[in-house]
């Protein structure tokens, strides 16, 4: 009885408080890092942590609601976490000249090609399966 009385407010806090939920995301990440180190897998801790969370969601051990607010906030502000990494350019002054321009052009053209090919492949396959499904439904 006593234990239940403590657990209920803790549960409520997890459902409502964004900061607590972000802490939970951090815990999954830390667990992923520890697992990566223990097993020697060449995977980032965040990805192992994500897999752990997904398995728990699917197995019913953890409700999505206890992570949703924190996750939404993290995903919305994710671009901020990339900002400091861009300053690594400061250490590569050789990229500020002609070579940098070439690489810039390469990245633009290549990325455009990758995006067009990926999107068109998926979309054409999508239209094909849709038509296929429709025909099967009629037959």
């Amino acid at each position, binding site marked *: 009885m006593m234990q239940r009385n403590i657990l209920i407010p803790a549960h409520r806090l997890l459902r409502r408080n964004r900061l607590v939920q972000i802490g939970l995301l*951090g815990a999954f*990440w830390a667990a992923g890092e520890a697992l990566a180190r223990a097993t020697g897998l060449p995977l980032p801790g965040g990805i192992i942590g994500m897999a752990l969370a997904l398995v728990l969601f699917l197995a019913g051990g953890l409700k*999505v609601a206890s*992570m949703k607010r924190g996750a939404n906030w993290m995903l*919305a502000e994710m671009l901020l976490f990339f900002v400091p990494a861009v*300053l690594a350019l400061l250490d590569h002054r050789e990229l500020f000249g002609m070579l940098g321009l070439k690489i810039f052009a390469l990245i633009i053209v290549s*990325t455009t*090609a990758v995006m067009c090919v990926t999107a068109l492949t*998926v979309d054409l396959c999508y239209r094909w399966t849709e038509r296929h499904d429709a025909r099967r439904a009629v037959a």
Partner: protein
Amino acid sequence: MTLAALWREPLVQAAVWSLATILLYLLAKRVHLRWPRWWLMPLAVAPALLMIAALALNVSYRDYIRGTHWLVALLGPATVAFAVPIYEQRALIRRRWPLLLAGMIAGSLTAVATSWALAYLLGIDGELRLSLLPRSMSTPFAMEVSGEIGGIPDLTAVFVVLTGIIGAAVGDIVLARLPLRSTLAKGALFGVGAHGAGTARAHQIGREEGAIAGLVMVLVGLMNVALAPLIIQFMK
């Protein structure tokens, strides 16, 4: 203590640069909301302003990142956060995974082939060309592949970040031009083409797009690490 000595204090440096990074990001976000031009995107404006400040104050990257590394580290928990949208879209993913797989394979092959060919055309060769190949995946994966195929992992990390920034902007333009019907294609485009930064952008466009982009980003990374030995064969 004089002001100059106080400025040299590592904790003060960390606080000042962290605060500057966050404030400039928020400011850039406001500006982009008001004038939504691709060249005003926060991921381009905020780092550019910070770089000007760092150059003006003669602060090296090492000094800057020592104080702001905790922000980059938050990418770990942010990756975990993708479990939520992926779980919510599980029905769609279960039904449509073959389409996503086809897009991922086509996209990854295009990334390696166009990077190699363009580098050849532009006269970029050796380690630099190899470092440019594994660009369309998130940094940890890219660095792993780069080392394996004989590139310079550090340089690859810079190219990956640049691809993310450029890709987030290019993605918007591609999205406006291509007559795409499915949200699957819109999400996959960002996930394969511009990994983390693109996924963050896709998440701003829509929940379904964000979930697909997140899933595809993770899977493309895994796929490329597994396929790195094949890429080496392709180059011989």
